[in-house]
């Protein structure tokens, strides 16, 4: 019943209160004094509260970067934990200003759901995890015919899963839950043989299981999961602010601007660096966007550049130890690429 109630409430707010969304989001955010950011209910590496209750992770830091761009202060952000099912309604109804919650960019979400994805903060793909202790000898997803598979509902994951087993003419019995904690518990208790979700998610989830070392992530990647932040349609200014916050993080890494050196970089002779950091005479880049001209300085001071953010949250500086891989800058053979800031 609770869920129906939430649904009704969501639908009702969608219908009635959505007028909030019509006003410029930037004005709204400034009036409130903080950015309301939708995150996961707790996925290590992306958005999970630490022991002090502060949200940590790539997605959570992205929210701080947006707050830094708008307010010059990365702490002016509030987080709303959302399950896969709740996330889009929360954004559509104006409950949150940005959805930064390991969400895959798809055409359906861009069109029918009325969202605008701003970019891809993490290129991912769907994988499978099994308990190697219980299932020795399984080392490929193609051996999974007949298995019970745990999956979270309302995700691209459950769609890819159906496609993959169908294409490979394999049987499976889905075990579907709405909350991440329920999927974790069911997998841990042995209700299913296989856990499937975004591979990065699997690494994060593995850390929270009883004995992480028992579990292996199978090599197959069965889908493209470009994860990125999204905003509502119909407010181009806000869309641009969030989108260029992401590009600014990339551009800073490309130019070698870091959290530590951003102040000295302001005095750099390189015209590109000066321009990005708002040091060009009479620059209008920041104000045209709707923020202050030192927005990039504020972003980098708060969370560092994209590379620093990545290593700190999911990379070598984190328990997940995920390699940059295709998430490296285009200059290093990866896919992360920012259009010029000029």
């Amino acid at each position, binding site marked *: *019943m609770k*869920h*129906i109630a939430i*649904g*009704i409430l*969501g*639908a009702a707010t*969608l*219908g*009635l209160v*959505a*007028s909030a*969304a*019509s006003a410029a989001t930037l004005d709204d955010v400034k009036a409130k004094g903080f950015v309301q950011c939708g995150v996961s209910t707790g996925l290590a590496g992306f958005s999970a509260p630490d022991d002090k209750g502060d949200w940590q992770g790539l997605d959570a830091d992205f929210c701080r970067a947006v707050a830094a761009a708008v307010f010059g202060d990365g702490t002016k952000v509030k987080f709303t934990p959302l399950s*896969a*099912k709740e996330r*889009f*309604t929360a954004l*559509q109804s104006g409950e949150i200003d940005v959805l930064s919650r390991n969400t895959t960019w798809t055409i*359906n*979400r861009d*069109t*029918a*759901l*009325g969202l605008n994805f701003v970019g891809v903060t993490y290129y991912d793909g769907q994988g499978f995890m099994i308990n190697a202790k*219980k*299932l020795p000898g399984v080392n490929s997803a193609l*051996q*999974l*015919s*007949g*298995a*019970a598979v745990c999956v979270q*509902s*309302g995700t691209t994951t*459950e*769609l890819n*899963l*159906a*496609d993959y087993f*169908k294409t490979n003419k394999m049987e*499976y*019995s*889905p*075990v*579907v*839950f*709405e*909350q991440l904690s*329920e999927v974790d518990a*069911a997998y841990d*208790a*042995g*209700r299913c*043989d296989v856990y499937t979700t975004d591979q990065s998610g699997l690494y994060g989830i593995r850390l929270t299981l009883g004995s992480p070392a028992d579990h292996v992530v199978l090599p197959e990647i069965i889908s493209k999961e470009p994860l990125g932040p999204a905003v*509502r*349609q*119909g407010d181009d200014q806000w869309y641009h602010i969030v989108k260029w916050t992401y590009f600014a993080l990339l551009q800073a890494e490309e130019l070698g601007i870091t959290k530590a050196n951003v102040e000295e970089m302001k005095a750099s002779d390189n015209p590109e660096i000066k321009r990005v950091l708002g040091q060009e005479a009479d620059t209008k880049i920041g104000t045209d966007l709707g923020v202050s001209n030192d927005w990039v300085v504020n972003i980098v001071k708060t969370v560092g550049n994209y590379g620093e953010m990545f290593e700190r949250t999911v990379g070598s500086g984190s328990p997940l130890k995920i390699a940059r891989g295709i998430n490296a800058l285009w200059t290093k053979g990866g896919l992360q690429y920012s259009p010029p800031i000029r």
Partner: protein
Amino acid sequence: MASQEILREEPSRGSFINDPKVRGIVFQAVVVIVLVALVWWIVQNTIDNLTRLRIASGFGFLRGRAGFDISDSAIAYSSDSTYGRAILVGFVNTLIVAFAGIVTATIIGFILGVGRLSHNWLIRKICMVYVEVFRNIPPLLVIFFWYSGVLSVLPPPRESINLPFSSFLNQRGFYFPRAVWGEGSWLILVALLLGIAMAWFVARKARQRQMATGQQFPVFWTSAALIIGLPLLAYALSGFPLSFDYPKQSTFNLTGGFQVKPEFLSLYLALSFYTAAFIAEIVRAGIMGVSKGQTEAAGALGLRPGSILRLVVIPQAMRIVIPPLTSQYLNLTKNSSLAIAIGYPDLTATTGTVLNQTGQAIECVLIMMVVYLALSLLTSAVMNVINARMALVER
């Protein structure tokens, strides 16, 4: 003169505005107009907002390909089926669990309710403790209790518990052989129906005879012979067309046979046991509502305690029991939407998934509301019919 006039005008208080009848009509009209305006405003506002947010609307999405699988389905369904069918699967699942739950809860509830009035101290206390415990726990907890119980107490699939008749019990559920009906097995079904019809006829005739002559006829044994014997005969005549598909161990799970999933099992058990506690109280109140004189009079006529309960007390108690029983049935049906917490694909769960995959929030919530409402009204209607038949027949 003057006093007469005043008297005559008294009822309408001199003015049209003060006439209670006129006032009543005016107020009702105002309420209706305000209500219509409000609904119109809500609908209009919703349409405007959806257009501005560029969210598609309408029910056309129900024909789209669902693309996701459902763990437990009583009707044919695959990821190629439509969203509409996915919702239907959820609806059928809700019906199944609600119906099974209602039947079981009623049986347990009646036993407990009668047990609470038993002369045996132990039985009375056990029933009381049961009722007090289950009545005071939120249903969600009861569901979690059963689900985590099932998952943590039962062994993994490779160490299944073997039960008689090639049945197995493990974390993944309860497996038993599935009947495979061969050619000609329709004869068995026909024979069964025939048996039931004949048994019913015999029972009727026997009752009429007993009424007229006082002679009794062994109805139970005749009926049993008809209902069991006829299908058996048909089975033999059609050349034993029935075979069984047994559950077998494979790499991951048991395959073949019929599987009752732990999600269904725990939801069904939880709803039954939870609601039974409330039904027990209703039954106890119903029985206590029948005056003691009835029992004593029946005893004086020489009826045994069992017969007194069955023939005298329960029929009268039913009149008190049925109305509150209806509302327990409605509660059980609505509580079945807690299924979502343990991943049983009921109406709420599948419609929720459709909602999420399509983003058609308003449409999906509307469907859910209409279906639950219809289900509740239907249950009430059925119970009203039963109630009318049970009501005191004045002769």
